[in-house]
């Protein structure tokens, strides 16, 4: 007796928009460019799209993108988990495909954060004066905490508990820059050293300017469909093997139970279990690198090394192509592109690795890739496991 084959979700097309500087683009124009390219990469047309997943910084965001792109989707999702959003959106899209409630879901992201900076005052907190609404943000903003400050609080505690050093954190930025050298679109490509990171100005101790992601314009998109549908397309599909997401607290890091543990500790094991893999099976990783400390916490929490050993792991070249866990092979948010919510870029690069299209930083024979997004103040985590072969 045989059971019918389970309908499997695949990513059939990926693309980024131009980046990192798009002064003549609106946010929606970035979406349009990335989406057009991802559909072309898949060998599909706008008319094939019946699902849309995207998110941004205001409510009914997907509805707005749908209107601007001329789409009337019968499946849409705008789950906002900050930097982890796009791993969640692709996990949801895969579920929708496998449930048979959508056929072709376009997942798209766009931002012109860099070009908009000149048009508003500052980022990461109120403009001074005025009343803040009741909510968690006021319990640190009034004391002058910043977005970078939150990650610095976590970094300092990790250093205290595990002996992690500023040099080890800096080595993450050095490796990302080395990878960015091979990405012609990357925002920064000139090599840097650990000393360069440590001598860049401190933004919030122990994080220096070069421990922080860049600020960019840009977008990216992917097309999620069924393996059956993809079989008729010219493009090489990549299988969505499993995904999971988790949250530990909202925006006030003091409400996190342990500042040295990110939600990856929950989402990672669950995603690996759903995908039927272990950390040892992963050939290449794309890990959200908002700050160097984010990567150290993530490699520990996903189980690529023990808790507290992330510092030595990254310092010994663990993230480099040729290392234990080649990571952010496009140069990451630290050097290539970080338009605000980078999660979609992680998925694009993971798919390129599995297709063998990653250029100079191609990991030989990569068959399992992980994309992991981290959002908020280490508040959200979402892990997506992708594979070259059908499960």
């Amino acid at each position, binding site marked *: 007796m045989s059971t019918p084959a389970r309908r499997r979700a695949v990513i059939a097309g990926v693309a980024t928009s131009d980046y990192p500087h798009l002064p003549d683009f609106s946010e929606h124009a970035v979406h349009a460019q990335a989406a057009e390219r991802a559909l072309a990469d898949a060998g599909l047309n706008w008319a094939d799209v019946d699902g849309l997943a995207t998110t941004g910084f205001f409510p009914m965001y997907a509805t707005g993108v749908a209107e601007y792109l001329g789409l009337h989707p019968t499946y849409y999702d705008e789950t906002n988990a900050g930097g982890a959003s796009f791993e969640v959106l692709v996990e949801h899209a895969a579920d929708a495909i496998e449930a048979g409630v959508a056929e072709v879901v376009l997942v798209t992201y766009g931002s012109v954060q860099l070009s908009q900076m000149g048009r508003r005052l500052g980022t990461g907190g109120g403009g*001074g004066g005025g009343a803040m609404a009741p909510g968690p943000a006021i319990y640190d*903003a009034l*004391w002058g905490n910043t977005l970078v*400050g939150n990650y610095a*609080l*976590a970094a300092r*505690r990790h250093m205290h508990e595990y002996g992690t050093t500023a040099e080890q954190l800096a080595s993450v930025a050095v490796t990302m820059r080395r990878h960015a050298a091979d990405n012609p679109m990357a925002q920064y490509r000139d090599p840097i050293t650990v000393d360069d990171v440590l001598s860049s100005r401190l933004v*919030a101790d122990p994080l220096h300017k070069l421990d922080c992601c860049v600020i960019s314009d840009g977008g990216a998109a992917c097309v999620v469909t069924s393996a059956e549908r993809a079989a008729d397309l010219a493009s090489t599909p990549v299988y969505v093997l499993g995904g999971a997401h988790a949250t530990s607290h909202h925006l*006030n890091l003091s409400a996190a139970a342990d500042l040295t543990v990110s939600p990856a500790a929950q989402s990672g094991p669950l995603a690996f279990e759903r995908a039927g893999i272990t950390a040892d099976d992963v050939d290449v990783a794309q890990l959200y690198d908002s700050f160097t400390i984010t990567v150290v916490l993530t490699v520990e929490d996903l189980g690529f090394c023990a808790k507290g050993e992330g510092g030595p792991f990254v310092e010994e070249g663990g993230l480099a192509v040729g290392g234990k866990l080649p990571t952010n092979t496009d140069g990451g948010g630290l050097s290539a592109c970080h338009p605000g919510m980078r999660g979609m870029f992680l998925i694009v690069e993971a798919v390129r690795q599995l297709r063998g299209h990653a250029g100079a930083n191609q990991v030989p024979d990569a068959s399992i890739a992980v994309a992991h997004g981290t959002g908020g103040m280490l508040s959200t985590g979402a892990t997506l496991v992708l594979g070259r072969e059908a499960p």
Partner: protein
Amino acid sequence: MGDERFFPDDMPMPSANAETAGWWEACVDHRLVVQRCLACGTTRHPPGPVCPACRSASAEWAELPGTGTVYTYTVVRQAFMPALAGTVPYVVAAIEPDGGGGVRLVSNVVGCDPEDVTIGMPVEVVWEDIAPELALPRFRPCTGGGSAR
């Protein structure tokens, strides 16, 4: 106490609701409090509608002695809020208040060189009166005299 000013006047002002007003009112009286569940005793901060451990809505404002320790800290050297551009460098710290049952408050360590702050450092509250209806707790290295209430 309360005469000393650490942050400029043009900082954002908080607004309160029914769940949070008690915390801000205690601050005006220079009392450091945290919300404590009357059903299971779990403390929480920031204030919220129900206990995150047992979901009871019944809570009290537990008054703390005003001392504590630095759980972690950072020296902010680039202000993102324009109002604080002239205040950097300043120390933002997560403080574990004594008697707080493990809750942490994001606050500042003032009254010392930022370079002298360490994790585990004993601190005590110092109140900054900002407006008739607003005072904020900040912390300074312990002087040995207990609460600076």
